[in-house]
């Protein structure tokens, strides 16, 4: 049996729809095969979450949506439409 590890893909979308455009992204690779850091790519690995799903990624977190707190209707802060996806891949063996 291969030793499987989790690889995470975090995609931030234009709006909550899974077919909307990716505006920001991050990859965290638990297999040890890839090294990712800030600013390491200018184009996202997928255009939409749906495209990533078609390529085998499983969505494991949907962003909750909350109405704005009174007085904070125009406030911007973190990226709101954050989807976390995973794939299980074989780990590197030392």
């Amino acid at each position: 049996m291969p030793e499987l590890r989790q690889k995470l893909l975090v995609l931030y979308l234009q709006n909550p729809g899974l077919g909307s455009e990716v505006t920001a992204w991050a990859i965290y690779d638990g297999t040890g095969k890839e090294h990712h850091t800030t600013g390491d790519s200018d184009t996202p690995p997928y255009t939409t979450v749906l495209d990533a799903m078609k390529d085998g990624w499983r969505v494991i977190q949907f962003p909750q949506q909350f109405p704005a707190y009174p007085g904070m209707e125009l406030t911007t802060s973190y990226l709101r439409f954050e989807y976390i996806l995973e794939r299980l891949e074989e780990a590197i063996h030392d």
Partner: protein
Amino acid sequence: MIENNLLTSVQMANFVADGLLVFNELIPAEINGEVMRELDEKRINFGYEPQGQPFENLWTESQGIGALVRLPQVQGIIQSLVGPDCLYDHHCPHRVGPHHVDGQVWHADAIIDTRLHFDIQLFYYPHDTPREMGGTMFLPGSHLRRIHETDIGRYQNFRGQLPIVCKAGTLVVGHHGLWHCAQPNLTDRMRYMFKIRLNPTVRQLLLWNTEDLDDPEIPNILFRNHRWYGNDDRLEYANRIKFWRFLIGDENFDAHYWLTRIENKPERVAVHA
């Protein structure tokens, strides 16, 4: 001399939209060379000077950093954004060693800051900084977001992120809330970036050259989209209009009818025929 080097209203509008202004190769080569000597020979204190003192007290004998901040062009930028008699907050000669493969996590400096009043940070690059040497990565348009320092550390890449790849003598001036991170340095040389934070002591009101205050492009600049915003772009425009109102002292200013619409609360009682 400062009066001849003030920013224009269009430049200020760009600062409001992007949270930064880039001045490529602004600083002359002789000053860049002197700054490198000051850094290499540690003639400049790498730790903070006493904070909150008048900025003009700093580096009065220095022919590198001191000469840089006394340049009329730099004085004009500072005067336009934080006005006369600004205070020294802190400085730091940032260094990224050779063969450093990790980027710094995204962050904004200090803490959540709800003021319309703002500090500026000067990011100065004393030597050529090609992409493989990193440069600082900035996220244009992030400065009005209310976040706390490295709470944004999960993010890695954004559409529209801006790596500073520049020639020696380039100066970036940023709003204190701007998101940024140092980039990996894959070369075999040390990379420097000298940062200075300044606080205003006067109301930041029309401090620049306002001859072009009615430039018709200003509303369009304030509506510049940044591709990483997604659906939040409309909220950013509203916050920029509020920021511009603060800077020009006109609570009735609007761009593209954006705030007028949601501030419309008629009280007049209709008269029926």
